[in-house]
């Protein structure tokens, strides 16, 4: 089978048993790889009764067929598990070098069950899988863990590990590889911690064989030409990466400022990507098989916020900066470094600190509750201190270490407009939905909770001006394109987000299909690929429905609906498409308008008849209960 290693490793950490088998052909045909594999296993094995921290939760590492080939941007690996934040489908993905290293060991997927008695490291190589005790590493941060494991197993070894946050089951914990590449969302690092799995080390040199090397080379050339001809990819992305967005969002009046109370931040220029490049940039770095070098490595050389070089994204600037009204760029760089070092999701933590600051402003938290911290808006010391305390679940850090929703529940204010979450996730994007009404709606329907990365694409503010039907159709395209990237193992930014216009993205997604066909030798056309991604998106929704998700969970947070933007070019604007957007989205998806469950006809047409029967029983039970 071309482009696949055709081997799956099963590990039971409770018993220490390791097994190996070939890939299931139906799984490959139906779901291709990567996120397709992790989500299908979650439907098959992780029902509503499964405790995310119990031995029955399954931690799944998976790569797609393009990983390990010469396809541009083919560096991604996905890790899935039931999410301890949302209680439904969970996954995250990362670029860098771990994904290709895992494929080079000769495995497409690692399926990890049980709970180890003692801290454990899993070494995956061409010779098989070996478990070793990791008492010596337990407590080490991710930078130190990676350094020590690469010293032990060689520089060719790549490491995906957790830090103190994951060890302590902080629900916003992530997995870190390559010194700062994070499997960030859904608390997957906490699941890894619950299994006492400190790290997975990949060490291999197997080549991935492809069906049509010349065809792959030709498609890769066309993709690279598409990148070279796009001024965004030649002039902007290599310099600024995702940090290019901060200034633009602020000037349009839609930057998530002061926990979304405002749309503009008076100090946006001081924390912009442009300023960051002039001050703390250390290096531009690229993932495996990528020419864009959008990774910005930054460090503060001296002072109280001195930090080690590590990767930073736009999201850190928006979260630790604008959301907290913090104009101190060095403190933002430091908080970001602590997240990478200790293994925490920048998005969820930044949102949680902004939420705490608003609680303090409103008197929900009194000075005696905050243990000597000054939680006044914009205090850089508080941002950094809270970040550190969260990693070790100390004091107020413990309160927010499980995310915004659980912190709000502890304070009894989860229904207030300043506790902004969607499906219990607070770390959704930083683009205000009162400005980007259509484009921001993507986080409402994301299958892994409030998340903006499931439907990235070049459309932005222009989508507001399209007829709703056409705008939603474009959002569906974005969802499918991003899903295709994640099943094949390529970067959705290279193929989608980093495109000057929709036509360029559409062209690149077409080339992606050619890359897949050349790599695997399959004859499926683009319509077939759309069907695969549609099947996957419906199956993921079914996981949510089975876990209790319904239409009301797709609502936009109250603040955006009830409170008009007070400032900026869109002052006075509210999110006024809460019902109309979702009606149109469900209609185009073929989902039930009342429950939000995928319709039986749609599921059957996708070969998901069994899923349809399960959902029908659930909906009947719910109706009887009501």
């Amino acid at each position, binding site marked *: 089978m071309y482009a696949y290693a055709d081997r799956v490793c099963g590990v039971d950490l409770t018993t220490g048993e390791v097994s190996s088998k070939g890939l299931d052909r139906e799984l490959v045909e139906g779901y291709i790889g990567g996120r397709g594999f992790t989500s299908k296993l979650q439907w098959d094995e992780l029902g509503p009764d499964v405790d995310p921290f119990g031995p029955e939760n399954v931690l799944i590492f998976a790569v797609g067929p393009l990983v390990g080939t010469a396809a541009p941007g083919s560096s991604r690996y996905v890790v899935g598990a039931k999410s301890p934040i949302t209680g439904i489908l969970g996954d995250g993905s990362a670029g860098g070098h771990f994904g290709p290293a895992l494929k080079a060991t000769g495995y497409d997927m690692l399926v990890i069950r049980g709970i180890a008695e003692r801290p454990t490291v899993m070494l995956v190589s061409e010779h098989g899988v070996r478990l070793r005790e990791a008492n010596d590493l337990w407590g080490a941060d991710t930078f130190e863990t990676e350094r020590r494991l690469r010293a032990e197993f060689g520089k060719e070894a790549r490491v995906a590990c957790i830090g103190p946050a994951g060890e302590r089951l902080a629900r916003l914990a992530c997995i870190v590889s390559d010194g700062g590449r994070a499997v960030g969302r859904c608390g997957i690092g906490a699941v890894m911690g619950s299994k006492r799995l400190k790290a997975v080390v990949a060490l291999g040199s197997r080549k991935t064989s492809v069906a049509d090397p010349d065809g792959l080379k030709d498609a890769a050339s066309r993709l690279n030409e598409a990148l070279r001809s796009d*001024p*965004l990819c030649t*002039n*902007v992305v290599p310099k600024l990466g*995702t940090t*290019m*967005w901060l*200034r*633009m*969002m602020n*000037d*349009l*009046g839609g930057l998530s400022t002061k926990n979304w109370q405002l749309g503009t931040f008076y100090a946006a220029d001081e924390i912009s990507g*442009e300023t960051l490049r002039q001050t703390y940039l250390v290096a531009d770095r690229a993932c495996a098989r990528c020419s864009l070098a959008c990774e910005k490595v930054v460090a503060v050389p001296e002072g109280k916020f001195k930090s080690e070089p590590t990767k930073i*994204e*736009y*999201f850190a600037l928006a979260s630790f900066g604008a959301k907290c009204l913090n104009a101190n760029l060095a403190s933002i760089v430091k908080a970001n470094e602590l997240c990478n070092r200790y293994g925490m999701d920048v998005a969820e933590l930044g949102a949680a600190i902004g939420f705490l600051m608003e609680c303090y402003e409103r008197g929900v938290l009194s000075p005696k509750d905050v243990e000597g911290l000054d939680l006044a808006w914009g205090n850089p010391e508080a941002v950094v201190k809270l970040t550190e305390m969260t990693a070790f679940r100390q004091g107020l850090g413990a309160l927010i270490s499980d995310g915004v929703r659980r912190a709000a529940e502890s304070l009894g204010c989860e229904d207030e407009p300043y506790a902004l979450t969607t499906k219990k996730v607070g770390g959704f*994007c*930083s*683009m205000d939905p009162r400005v*980007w009404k259509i*484009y921001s709606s993507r986080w409402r329907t994301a299958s892994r909770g409030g998340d*903006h*990365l499931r439907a*990235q*694409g*070049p*459309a*932005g*503010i*222009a989508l507001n*001006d399209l007829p709703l039907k056409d705008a939603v159709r474009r959002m569906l395209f974005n969802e499918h394109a991003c899903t295709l990237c994640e099943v094949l193992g390529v970067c959705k930014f290279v193929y*989608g*987000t980093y*495109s*000057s*216009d*929709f036509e360029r993205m559409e062209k690149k997604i077409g080339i992606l299909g050619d890359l897949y066909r050349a790599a695997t030798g399959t004859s499926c056309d683009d319509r077939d690929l759309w069907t695969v991604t549609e099947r996957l998106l419906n199956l993921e929704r079914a996981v949510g429905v089975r876990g209790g998700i319904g239409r009301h969970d797709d609502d936009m947070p109250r603040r955006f609906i009830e409170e008009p933007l007070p400032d*900026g*070019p*869109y002052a006075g604007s509210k999110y006024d498409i809460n019902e109309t957007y979702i009606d149109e989205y469900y209609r185009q998806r073929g989902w039930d308008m009342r429950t939000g469950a995928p319709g039986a006809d749609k599921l059957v047409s996708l070969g998901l008849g069994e899923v349809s029967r399960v959902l029908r029983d659930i909906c009947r039970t719910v109706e009887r209960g009501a």
Partner: protein
Amino acid sequence: MEVKVRLYTVFKRYGRGPDPSEFCLMVPANSTVRDVIYELGMENEQGIVVIVDGLRGEPDTPLKEGSSVFLLPPAMSGG
């Protein structure tokens, strides 16, 4: 009169001076945003998003001495 211009991402290629993302531009009195767009050679760009002095504008929006003109590409994505 002099106005301040800020360009974003792919529009920076139309910029002037050492920092093409932010610069001052001399335009005749009573100019509008359209005059700035023509002066910069951006007349073929479709659907430019215009912000003038912090408010949403359009090509016909009049400018005054010292106005700030932000010109954004309509299709920019974001995180």
